[in-house]
């Protein structure tokens, strides 16, 4: 049956059933400042889990809020990281957020194809087309996430565009809000200047603290940062260097949020 469908649908490979990237071409860059028209949930309680994880939540009424999304891949691209993480953390719900329409469609098709060819697996990952720089609080409650990923984000080289970088001191407030205490934020880039920037933003933010070298070595996720995505694989192929910044969401002891 799948072969018949694949023949009818040339954008998917006949053999694997997976979507072909050629038919989902998109520019690498998308403008986060422009308001594209896609639906945004009014609040996190409006996120429809039955659409994203149909096997686990067959209908919207069945969703009791007992299990919630824990990992968010911000700017998930073609979904490489989500797919790798899915089998490493089969009990955790994860979502990819991507601004580009065609790329989101590709990831959707890829997940559907994987679910079809691996029954019972890949039910815990999904993708949503959205502007995560504006709407993250619409998707996640306070302290909901345990992991957030920012893999090879747009460097926005020009200084006047630095404010468009997905990691900046202001947006880190929102990421700190949706991350649970102890939750981890993973960032990686092959652009040294951006790597320095992201590290200094995280270091300078009072709600994030560095993760020790030992913890990094023990964390199975860290290796995936550079190997799991197409972007990461390309960098490795070209023998490029990568720059990681991995931090933990903390509650500072001497809070500079002392009450008057």
């Amino acid at each position: 049956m799948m072969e018949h469908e694949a023949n009818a649908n040339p954008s998917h490979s006949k053999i694997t059933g997976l979507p072909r990237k050629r038919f989902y071409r998109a520019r690498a860059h998308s403008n986060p400042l422009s308001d594209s028209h896609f639906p945004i949930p009014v609040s996190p309680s409006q996120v429809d889990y039955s659409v994203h994880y149909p096997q686990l939540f067959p209908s919207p009424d069945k969703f009791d809020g007992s299990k919630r999304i824990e990992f968010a891949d911000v700017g998930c691209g073609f979904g490489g990281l989500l797919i790798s993480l899915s089998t490493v953390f089969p009990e955790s719900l994860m979502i990819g957020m991507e601004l580009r329409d065609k790329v989101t469609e590709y990831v959707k098709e890829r997940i559907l194809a994987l679910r079809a060819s691996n029954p019972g697996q890949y039910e815990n990952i999904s993708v949503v087309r959205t502007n995560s720089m504006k709407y993250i609080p619409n998707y996640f409650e306070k302290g909901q996430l345990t992991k957030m990923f920012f893999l090879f984000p747009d460097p926005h080289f020009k200084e006047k565009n630095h404010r468009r970088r997905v990691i900046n001191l202001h947006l880190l407030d929102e990421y700190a809000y949706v991350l649970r205490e102890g939750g981890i934020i993973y960032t990686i880039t092959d652009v040294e200047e951006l790597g320095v920037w992201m590290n200094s933003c995280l270091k300078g933010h009072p709600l994030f603290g560095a993760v020790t070298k030992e913890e990094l070595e023990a964390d199975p996720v860290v290796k995936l940062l550079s190997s799991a995505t197409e972007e990461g694989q390309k960098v490795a192929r070209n023998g490029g260097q990568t720059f990681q910044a991995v931090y933990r969401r903390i509650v500072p002891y001497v809070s500079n949020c002392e009450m008057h």
Partner: protein
Amino acid sequence: MEEENDKNPETTVAPALISVHPTHKFVSAAVGSDLRVFNLQESCVVTLADESGGHKDSIRAIRYSANGQLFVSAGDDKLVKIWATDSWRCIYSVASEKRVSAVGISNDGMFVCFADKFGVMYVVDIEDHNVEDGVTVIKKGVPILSHYCSIITRLEFSPDGRFIVSSDRDFKIRVTVFPKNPVNGAHEIQSFCLGHTEFVSCLTFVGSQKYPLGLLVSGSGDSTVRLWDHTSGSLLDTCYVGAQAEFLPSDGKEEDILPAVTDLCATPDGSLVAVAIQSFYSNFSLPGLMLLRCNQSSKTLSVAKVVSIPGETFIPTSIGAASSAPVLWMVMGASGLHVSESASLARVRGISGFSTSASESLDLETLVLEDAEIPGGELLLQTLQGKLSIGKEAFSAAAEAVKTAMRNLLIKKQYSAERREFRKRGRNDMKGKQ
């Protein structure tokens, strides 16, 4: 969607604003770049002392500090001016990189916050009140938080001073912990109050001695007024004001676009909330206000009464009240008009009886004040309006301008795909790519 006349950027239409001193000593109105203050206590006009000669472009936000000692004005000239209300001298001036959309003053009067068009909020430390006479001290703002790519419409401090609340045009309300040293940034978000489905135009707190923490009230373009527990972000109640006021397009052809809430004002004990409503698309507008009852123990909002202004199509662009007097002040006006008489218009009205709603069953005794009855009388009207009487023609012309002013302020300009492409041609990085 209408497209703004891009050829004349100088004639931006800006809505008139009003602000009342907490102990009813002064009433201020801002019309365009003109700041007008009337001394109610001594029944005289106030002369402002400012080395730079006042604001050079439309004023977008004005307010008094909780203790009445300070007054802040800011706007399109990218300046935030802080005035001492005893001498009405501009004691501090803060330059902003972008035009300013909202201002707030901490309850202890130590900090002034302002937001610019990029959605960044800045804080200015004004603890050192002992300024040399006659010299305006130039201060600098420090960025403390931001609503990414959104325009902040209001800033309010919670009654206990713990939080600063900011609302934006992208339907969001953010409650942030206001730290002891805000110059290091306000990074800890307490909650988001999410529920509105259109721009959030106004915020106010309702609090009382019995409920000192207070609850947050917000008004929006989605035609609702909502009550929130700001510490948790939970929505307590929604009042569908537009629907209740029976706003239906007169010709029935247009979609059911409900009118927007444009301003809010609460009584000191938080039992009553006055709501200004305006329809941007149809000609049907509520001339006057709606009064809502706020019950802080049951945490509910309900419509108490509609107060209509007889005799004129008075649609308030801004409302305010003192905590010490039961008068609700309203102004309707705009600047940047194309009327033969003048470039701006402002009409001030007052409603008395704006005080504690003693019981839900009793009717509120509010009274729309005639010009002769208004505190400060004709001299106040002359001062704040710029002139005593306004011709009917000028008034109806202004009504259109007022609509445009509010709409431009709150709704993002929509360009057709064609126009967007045309605008892109001016971009530097697009040149050379034909």
